């Protein structure tokens, strides 16, 4: 189980409350698909995701980003048992979706970048370090069944 100090808990909540799930959520999958195009192979049911314009205008891409951030919200609310909270999601990504787990880190990086665009100087180095620890714990939890 990951140990969190009070300062870390407070910092993660403080970053998260500044994130508008609708606004940031619509970006993160788009960013992942555009910056790391091989990830497109996991979203075959989303229709046209083969050009930047198509990705940015794709409603399913935007909607799915919100699904991902809503799942991240669960992790923020369950910091003391992210692994348990994500056990079903981990199994889904392994058994059904068959995602290469290296890709979790790519999406986590895109989430951080989207948040950096929004929070700017508020994502200072010490805050970034704590946020990185949180996302690393989330990625590890998603990896747990692999």
């Amino acid at each position, binding site marked *: 189980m990951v140990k969190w100090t009070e300062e870390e808990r407070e910092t993660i909540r403080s970053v998260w409350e500044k994130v508008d799930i609708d606004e940031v959520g619509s970006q993160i999958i788009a960013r992942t698909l555009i*910056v790391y195009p091989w990830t497109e192979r996991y979203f075959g049911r989303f229709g046209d995701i083969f050009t930047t314009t198509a990705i940015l205008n794709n409603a399913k891409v935007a909607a799915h980003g919100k699904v991902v951030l809503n799942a991240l919200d669960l992790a923020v609310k369950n910091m003391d048992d992210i692994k348990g909270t994500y056990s079903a999601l981990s199994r889904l990504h392994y058994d059904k979706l068959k995602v290469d787990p290296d890709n979790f880190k790519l999406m986590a990086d895109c989430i951080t*970048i989207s948040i*950096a*665009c929004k929070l700017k100087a508020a994502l200072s180095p010490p805050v970034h*370090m704590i946020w*990185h620890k949180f996302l690393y714990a989330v990625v590890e939890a998603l990896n747990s069944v692999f």
Partner: protein
Amino acid sequence: MVKWSDFERSTIQDIFAKIDKNVVGPAALTRCLTVYPWTQRYFGGFGNLYNADAIAANPKVAAHGKVVLNSLENGVKNLDDLKNFYKDLSVLHSEKLQVDPDNFKLLTDCITVVVAGQLGKAFTPEVHAAFSKFLAVVVASLRKFFNSTNWLNCC
């Protein structure tokens, strides 16, 4: 040789025109040393790196951040031959500095976060993709002369 689209060239040049490299450089290196503390071991001669505030206030960190961004800015002027442009730096980082090359990506990740923070909404996914490609090619160029025949020659 890496191919660059017109959009990628102009976007990468535009990013460097918009950012203040004397702000981004120090901020990126500070961030790297803070978020990935094991990277501090490469900067033993820099003095006080004991906590986030010390790193942020350290003049050698700031100065070296500027050195890194200057090098990247010069790289932008040599987009069509980054491998050769970074050859000497690659040999330096391999043979003299003995840096684990996985750390290059950590620094470029921090540069990306700082640039995203500076540009905000203007750091769109397409701009992010072009910048990410540039940094990936720089990293690949820096990695190029690691484990090269140079160390075979010493045996």
